[in-house]
């Protein structure tokens, strides 16, 4: 797993002979590139685990009835096996108990899958991974502003993740395990009324730690981008990826505290007798939803904005043109960020808001489609007339534009309060957010991965494997999620382990798609391993004249310490 840098063979930069080695290099690391690398490894690990959970969910949903989760629950939680019981009454009770535990376990998987993919896969990959690696390089800075804080940000993620894992095995509802309330953890299901056991408290603390990690990261990025740009690198000359990270970390700084506040209230309601969300004592569970989505909507943009940045770099590089409408692109992200704070109740159309309030949120939500459209059209305009080089990163970027647009369109459908009345909490919503996340955000991450892999590792990967990975994933995820639109329109609700037989057809198709996507993940891992084994040396700039940002002026991989004399940007 060694990520070799050119430390040893690049003597021009090797005047720091005390560069750390071995485990110390990583555990004590204050180097933005090493920390970025650890974030990327962590994200891959979490993504594989989160994906594994989702494939098990799809196996369950392949047919109506409970297929695997009662067995899984029995195995994992070592519940008594009804087959060994002879007393018929007892046997029935055991079977029912297994079924209940199985269905709870399915919901625990839904919850863990969502939390893992959001907090431990997409965010660490985009912000912690690519952000750490390339923000300092792109603005010509020697490192992040607070290298030690950077180290803490990363290491906070580990206990956060462990707490989430722990919650899956701790008691949740009485006699059952884990948190089954979904990543949105609405009370009263998440209060002592619904989940009295400690599983919920572990999950809350996990989110606290992950949030603390993100906040420290956000402060670090803001300081770095404001203060450490090389001479001449004005804000309006910054690469769009840096802009995207800047907007993202501002969203984090403003929205995460509200989530922290909400879950702290939940925690004190649960453990210290406060009554923020307890109706019997004058609280209101709806308040939690308002607070959650005041965070939650900006959060979904936090997940996609750095992806926008990556796509801009990739499209411009392989079209060999500067991005069309640079300033418009930068300020479109700012606009998305700002408007994103005043649309939260589009997640809450069914809670009983009055008609005027709904009308406002419909209008505000639709306005977001404008800057988003600006971005999509600018990417297309960038490609227009360019001499496009169809390398692997470009495949992923074009795939991103296509899939993200599909998700954007269903988003505008859902923005209509009247339509959403029937579609809320159905698979239509699941299809929507997976088109923008597991197809949009993930494709952006892979675009970035194949774009920067040679820079990060110093090795070239096999273009053939990268493209195969693209096609298998593209086909797989579309088969998973496109039919979910039909299921949603037909009224199938989300977050249930079982469904009426009428929904079987498209569910089966969707499940097959998830197996294809899983093969895609294996191809990805294979391609990575083979790149490490083959060790085909990457040039400093493998992409040619289109790659104009500063990281391509450095060696591949870059020296342990770069820019000891600051570059001057003209």
């Amino acid at each position, binding site marked *: 797993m060694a990520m070799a840098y050119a430390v040893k063979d690049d003597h021009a930069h090797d005047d720091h002979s005390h560069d750390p080695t071995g485990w110390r290099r990583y555990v004590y690391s204050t180097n933005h590139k090493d920390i970025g690398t650890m974030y990327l490894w962590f994200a891959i690990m979490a993504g594989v685990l989160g994906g594994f959970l989702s494939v098990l969910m799809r196996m369950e949903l392949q047919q109506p009835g409970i297929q695997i989760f009662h067995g899984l629950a029995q195995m994992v939680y070592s519940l008594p096996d009804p087959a060994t019981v002879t007393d018929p009454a007892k046997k029935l009770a055991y079977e029912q108990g297994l079924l209940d535990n199985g269905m709870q376990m399915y919901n625990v998987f839904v919850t863990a899958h969502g939390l893992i993919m959001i907090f431990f896969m997409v965010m660490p990959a985009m912000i912690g991974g690519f952000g750490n690696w390339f923000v300092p390089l792109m603005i010509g800075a020697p490192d992040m502003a607070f290298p030690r804080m950077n180290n803490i940000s990363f290491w906070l993620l580990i206990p956060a993740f462990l707490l989430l894992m722990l919650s899956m095995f701790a008691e949740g509802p009485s006699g059952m395990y884990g948190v089954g309330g979904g990543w949105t953890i609405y009370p009263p299901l998440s209060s002592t009324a619904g989940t009295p056991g400690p599983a919920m408290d572990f999950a809350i603390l996990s989110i606290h730690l992950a949030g603390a990690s993100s906040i420290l990261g956000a*402060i670090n990025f803001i*300081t770095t981008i404001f203060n450490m740009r090389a001479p001449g690198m004005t804000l309006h000359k910054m690469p769009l990826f840096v802009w995207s990270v800047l907007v993202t970390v501002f969203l984090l700084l403003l929205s995460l505290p509200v989530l922290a*506040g909400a879950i702290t209230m939940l925690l004190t309601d649960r453990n210290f*007798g406060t009554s923020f969300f307890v109706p019997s004592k004058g609280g209101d569970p*709806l*308040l939690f939803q308002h*607070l959650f989505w005041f965070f939650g909507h900006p959060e979904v943009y936090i997940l996609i904005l750095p992806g926008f940045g990556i796509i801009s770099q990739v499209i411009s590089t392989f079209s060999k043109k500067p991005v069309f409408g640079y300033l418009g692109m930068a300020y479109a992200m700012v606009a998305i960020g700002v408007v994103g704070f005043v649309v939260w109740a589009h997640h809450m159309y069914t809670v009983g808001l*009055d008609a005027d309030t709904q009308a406002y949120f419909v209008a505000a939500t639709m306005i977001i489609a404008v800057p988003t459209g600006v971005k999509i059209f600018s990417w297309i305009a960038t490609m227009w007339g360019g001499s496009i080089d169809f390398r692997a990163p470009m495949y992923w970027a074009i795939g991103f534009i296509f899939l993200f647009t599909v998700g954007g369109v269903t988003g505008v459908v859902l923005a209509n309060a009247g339509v959403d009345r029937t579609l809320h909490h159905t698979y239509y919503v699941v299809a929507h957010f997976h088109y923008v996340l597991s197809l949009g955000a993930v494709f952006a991450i892979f675009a970035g991965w194949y774009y920067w892999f040679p820079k990060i590792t110093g090795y070239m990967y096999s273009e053939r494997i990268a493209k195969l990975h693209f096609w298998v994933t593209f086909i797989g995820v579309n088969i998973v999620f496109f039919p979910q639109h039909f299921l949603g329109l037909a009224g199938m609700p989300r977050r249930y382990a079982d469904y009426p037989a009428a929904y079987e057809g498209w569910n089966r198709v969707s499940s097959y798609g998830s197996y294809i996507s899983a093969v895609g993940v294996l191809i990805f891992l294979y391609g990575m391993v083979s790149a490490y084994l083959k060790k085909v040396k990457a040039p400093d700039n493998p992409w040619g004249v289109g790659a104009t940002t500063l990281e391509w002026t450095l060696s591949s991989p870059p020296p342990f310490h770069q820019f000891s004399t600051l570059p001057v940007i003209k």
Partner: protein
Amino acid sequence: MAALPSKNLRVALIAAGVFVGMIGLSYAAVPFYKAFCKATGFGGTTQRAEKAPDKATDQFIMVRFDANTSSGLPWEFHPRQNVMKVKIGEQNMAYYDARNIGSNTNTGTAVFNVSPASAGAFFDKIQCFCFTKQTLKAGQAEELPVSFFVDPALLDDADARNIKEITLSYTFYPATDPAVQSKSVANSN
């Protein structure tokens, strides 16, 4: 460049200040939200009034009565009338019956709202058993009155004027939940 560390520290401190401020705001949202619900009747929060308006209108509206009891309270709790046809603006009296079927004395508080939610701003209570806690000895039965009126302003409200029926709902909870008894003193009203 010598000033960089202090410049960095300044930006970081400002950012940390924003973070703390936002946490503060999320807590400030709690009283704000309560005041907002009270003022606007949001979510079916009912109003409290001293007395009914001087003259009633000649328009009628149906008021339905609903009663629920938390599983933690061994009480029977029912409305005496399921529905009343009332004049908008006129003061009315409705009764609920509660009986303690447990073997201990218990105290309960009733939580209430009306639906549709947009009627909340126009449903005014003058007297209600829900304003105070109720204590019942084992086996004791009690008549619980509520006097209310529907505000004539309802007829001028774009959202609410088409409402033909308002449901007033109560849920009785134990006032001293044994699990949180020792901790809930601060919230006991």
